């Protein structure tokens, strides 16, 4: 069906073009021989091809364009004809003898053009006559094209100010009147198109109508080009007349297009000065009109206008642009009860952008917009519409983009309320936007109140919101989000300890609601943030960094830390907790709080004993413990002994022999702290190393027993290195002989049959020997010390 239709249409178009060309040919011949009568006859016949009803607007346009070209030639001819003495008035009558109206009117317009140029009659009279006579064409498509022809030929002949066709008083009005009338008639025809033909082809017709819209809109463009249309005329005549037509035509497509057209073709300052009139039309439009887009574009234009120059800003204030727009939007939303929420949100979003651009200093305006939005949303429940949610994000992002400062945004009391209405997914997106904004701008959020508000805003990331689906959360996304939160926590800073502590408490309160999945991400930054406070206090210039009474003492901080880390038990994340405890212990050490440090170590040990069962994790943990413990100087002998003893004990109980061995020799450092003389116990160091050697031995034997080879000598070489270290550090228990015998032992091992070759170990050993050699050759005290060792 459709295909046939299209093919037929092609055929008809071809036939139309052929007919047109044939008559154009005869017309040319008549023109060449100056035969006016034949010229009129054939041109009328040629134009009769435009009487067809069979073509779609697009095809009709092709035909029209050809006729248009021919009419240009005819116009030239008419012009010459009048130069030859033929009266233009006679010509004007003569063409009206044509029996068919469409050709008659095309010819009339063509002669009319020459008539105006001849100036034998005032342009306004000719134009008036033409635009009136064109009423004879009531067929929408044919009428539209005819009138668009009229508009085309008359464009340069309007009696505008400064035009050569300007007559005496007030001819601008005539020019305007002419264009307005043509516009009105064209719009009526255009609107009427929808009623032509069967209902089932409605979609097709609407498409065709859209193709023709620019013919109508052109008139508005012409109006905007008329010099004489100044602000007053625009306000008093043009705009009311155009709007009247737009409102009265009661047609969705036309209203939508024309409103947009008005906004686009007339200058911004006109819009600003006529805002009330223009906005007044919106609530009167059909409910189906996409007002949001149109109005948004208006606001967008005005925003850009405001941005273009600061000089125009007073105008905005003077006309109270914001309140007018705000009112209008309110009315539109009220008038169109079934406007989808998307529409309302888009409108608010545009309004917000507008006010941010125009009145950046008026936070109350922005808040007002948000408030109105909340009001509208409150009637709707949670948003389901995807696009509406997107708009909300845009709405919420706008102030962030504008102020680049969440602190300012936090002043908008309705901001969080809007957030309430988006689904948790969007809430998260928005929260991310907020965090990114903070990071980008390095915003300082320095009071607990603000932090409270901020975390309330981003709660989508902080905790599972009610009813939110837990499944389908992308692991990577989740990590990304939580890392952002972690970064955010690090950003919170206040130099005032008191306030900072409050901030920490606030953050803590929020993140503790996050549940086991989030805590591992959020607790560490909080812990470090707290530790930073302590560090700063230690470095602080004040004599007594901690206020006297009731203020934040390190003890309080540590208590808080302890409680915070405890929450990780429930996750469970014992390894993380252990690390944090150790970190805290070290901080307590720096703060000289022995009991606190001891407590943290205790916690760490308990964790180690009770929660960390994986052998690999244990190895890592024990090394961490040893490393931390080694640096602790706050402990008294007793405490230290206890802890060291425990650590050594743990080391010896590791599952794998090599792990045991390494842990044990690491423990040797616990007894030897370089810069503290009271903590140099050479004997126990040696004990540790010997014990390590025994374990290494045992490891080899085990290996021999189970695999038939003794395995690598790596462990021995490592222990050798420890020997050398303590030897150099001056541990008298470690002497050259011991080193010598160890070297020999390794050498023997390496040469034994059962030893499986291990290039890495060989190289390690060789390097170690080279080091000894090197130290020997250094001479002096060092060389002397190494002298006895033979390699």
């Amino acid at each position, binding site marked *: 069906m459709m295909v046939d239709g299209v093919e037929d249409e092609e055929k008809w178009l071809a036939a139309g073009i052929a007919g047109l060309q044939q008559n154009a040919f005869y017309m040319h011949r008549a023109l060449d021989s100056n035969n006016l009568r034949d010229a009129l006859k054939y041109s009328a016949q040629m134009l009769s091809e435009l009487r067809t009803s069979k073509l779609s607007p697009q095809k009709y346009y092709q035909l029209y364009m050809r006729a248009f070209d021919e009419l240009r030639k005819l116009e030239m001819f008419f012009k010459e004809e009048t130069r030859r003495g033929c009266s233009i008035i006679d010509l004007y009558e003569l063409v009206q003898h044509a029996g068919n109206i469409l050709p008659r009117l095309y010819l009339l317009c063509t002669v009319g053009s020459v008539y105006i140029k001849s100036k034998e009659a005032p342009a306004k009279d000719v134009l008036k006559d033409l635009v009136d006579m064109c009423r*004879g064409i009531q067929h929408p498509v*044919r009428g539209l094209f005819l009138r668009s022809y009229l508009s085309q030929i008359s464009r340069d002949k309007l009696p505008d100010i400064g035009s050569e066709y300007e007559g005496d008083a007030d001819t601008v009005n005539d020019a305007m009147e002419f264009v307005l009338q043509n516009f009105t008639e064209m719009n009526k025809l255009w609107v009427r198109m929808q009623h032509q033909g069967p209902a089932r082809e409605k979609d097709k017709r609407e498409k065709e109508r859209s193709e023709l819209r620019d013919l109508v809109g052109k008139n508005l463009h012409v109006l905007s080009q008329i010099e004489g249309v100044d602000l007053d005329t625009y306000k008093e005549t043009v705009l009311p007349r155009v709007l009247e037509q737009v409102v009265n035509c009661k047609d969705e497509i036309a209203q939508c297009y024309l409103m947009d057209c008005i906004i686009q073709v007339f200058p911004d300052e006109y819009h600003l000065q006529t805002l009330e009139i223009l906005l007044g039309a919106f609530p009167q439009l059909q409910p189906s009109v996409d007002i949001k887009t149109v109005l948004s574009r208006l606001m967008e234009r005005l925003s850009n206008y405001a941005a273009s120059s600061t000089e125009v800003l007073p105008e905005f204030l003077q006309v109270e642009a914001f309140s007018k727009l705000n009112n209008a939007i309110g009315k539109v939303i009220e008038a169109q009860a079934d406007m989808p929420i998307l529409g309302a949100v888009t409108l608010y979003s545009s309004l917000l952008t507008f006010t941010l651009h125009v009145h950046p200093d008026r936070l109350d305006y922005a808040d007002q917009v948000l408030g109105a939005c909340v009001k509208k949303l409150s009637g709707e429940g949670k948003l389901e519409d995807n696009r509406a949610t997107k708009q909300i994000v845009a709405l919420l992002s706008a102030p962030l983009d504008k102020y680049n400062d969440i602190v300012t945004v936090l002043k908008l009391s309705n901001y969080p309320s809007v957030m309430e209405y988006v689904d948790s997914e969007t809430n998260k997106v928005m929260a991310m936007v907020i965090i990114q904004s903070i990071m980008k701008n390095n915003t300082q959020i320095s009071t607990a109140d603000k932090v409270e508000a901020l975390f309330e805003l981003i709660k989508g990331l902080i905790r599972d919101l009610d009813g939110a689906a837990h499944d389908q959360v992308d692991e990577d996304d989740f990590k990304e989000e939580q890392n952002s939160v972690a970064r955010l926590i690090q950003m919170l800073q206040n130099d005032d300890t008191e306030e900072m502590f409050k901030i920490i408490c606030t953050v803590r309160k929020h993140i503790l609601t996050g549940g086991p999945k989030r805590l591992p991400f959020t607790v560490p930054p909080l812990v470090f943030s707290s530790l930073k406070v302590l560090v700063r206090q230690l470095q602080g210039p004040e004599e007594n960094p901690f206020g006297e009474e009731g203020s934040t003492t390190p003890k309080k901080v540590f208590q808080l830390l302890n409680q915070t880390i405890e929450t990780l038990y429930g996750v469970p994340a014992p390894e993380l907790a252990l690390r944090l405890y150790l970190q805290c212990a070290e901080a307590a050490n720096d703060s000289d709080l022995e009991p606190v440090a001891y407590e943290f170590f205790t916690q760490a040990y308990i964790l180690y004993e009770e929660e960390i069962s994986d052998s690999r994790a244990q190895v890592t943990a024990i090394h961490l413990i040893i490393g931390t413990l080694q640096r602790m100087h706050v402990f008294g002998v007793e405490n230290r002994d206890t802890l060291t003893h425990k650590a050594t004990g743990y080391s010896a109980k590791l599952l794998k022999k090599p792990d045991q061995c390494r842990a044990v020799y690491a423990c040797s450092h616990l007894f030897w702290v370089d810069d503290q003389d009271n903590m140099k116990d050479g004997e126990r160091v040696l004990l540790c190393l010997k014990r390590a050697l025994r374990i290494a031995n045992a490891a080899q034997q085990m290996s021999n027993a189970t695999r038939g080879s003794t395995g690598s000598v790596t462990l021995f070489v490592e222990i050798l290195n420890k020997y050398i270290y303590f030897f150099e550090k001056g541990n008298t228990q470690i002497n050259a002989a011991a080193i010598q015998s160890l070297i020999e032992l390794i050498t023997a091992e390496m040469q034994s049959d059962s030893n499986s070759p291990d290039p890495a170990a060989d190289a390690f050993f060789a390097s170690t020997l080279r080091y000894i050699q090197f130290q020997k050759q250094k001479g002096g005290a060092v060389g002397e010390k190494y002298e006895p060792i033979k390699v």
Partner: protein
Amino acid sequence: MNYLIGAFKPACNISITFADGKNRKQVPLKKENGQTIMVPLFQSQENISGKISIEPVLGKKVEHNGVKIELLGQIEMYFDRGNFYDFTSLVRELDVPGEIYERKTYPFEFSTVEMPYETYNGVNVRLRYVLKVTVSRGYGGSVVEYQDFVVRNYTPPPSINNSIKMEVGIEDCLHIEFEYNKSKYHLKDVIIGKIYFLLVRIKIKNMDLEIRRRESTGSGANTHVETETLAKFELMDGAPVRGESIPIRLFLSPYELTPTHRNINNKFSVKYYLNLVLVDEEDRRYFKQQEITIYRLQENS
């Protein structure tokens, strides 16, 4: 027949010339045989004068029982062929019976001739004016020569010329109001008007304005009526909606109109009508006919 004509060649040639023949306006006149010739134009109350010259065929004398010239106004009905009705008949005796040997010229004059009717060539009827010169002869038949001329009578613009305004319609279907600016138009006039659509419930395709001529001849049972559409002028293309007003501007000059003739000598009438026709998409026609009077206005040229 040709040889007969040759055999009975008239004994003399008669020619009729008008006194102001050179200056008088000539207008075309369609003859019965379809040829168009140019003939002089007169109006009522004019003097019709000129000369008749009779020239015997070489070397022959013409004996005659008298020479006369007649001015005839005739109405001829085509369905009653050959039956002329002379409504005007004026005679001037130019010569007493005698003989003509050589070319002889007679002046003639009809003063302030009353010619109330215009020359008219219709479908069924013709009204003509003719000068008839008769050289009566006792034998061999009289020699007769005719000279047609055209009479047109001019009317001053009517003192009362109301517009035609009317509202017509079909209930719940179509209501229109139309207006023609005058009821009396001269031949080169322009009909200005408008059609206002009060109610449109049918899908109109187009609207034409027709000029129709109604020629009625005879009387009583013998009346013949012939209607011709002389002009079909498209006023509107497409379907209007309620409230549309469509302009009319129809120039009459391109059409071959005559003045309205009412009951000419009780023989015939010619009347003109404007017929407004609306055609709907099913090609149904809705029309309203209004008589207009057409008159001839003195041209100032």
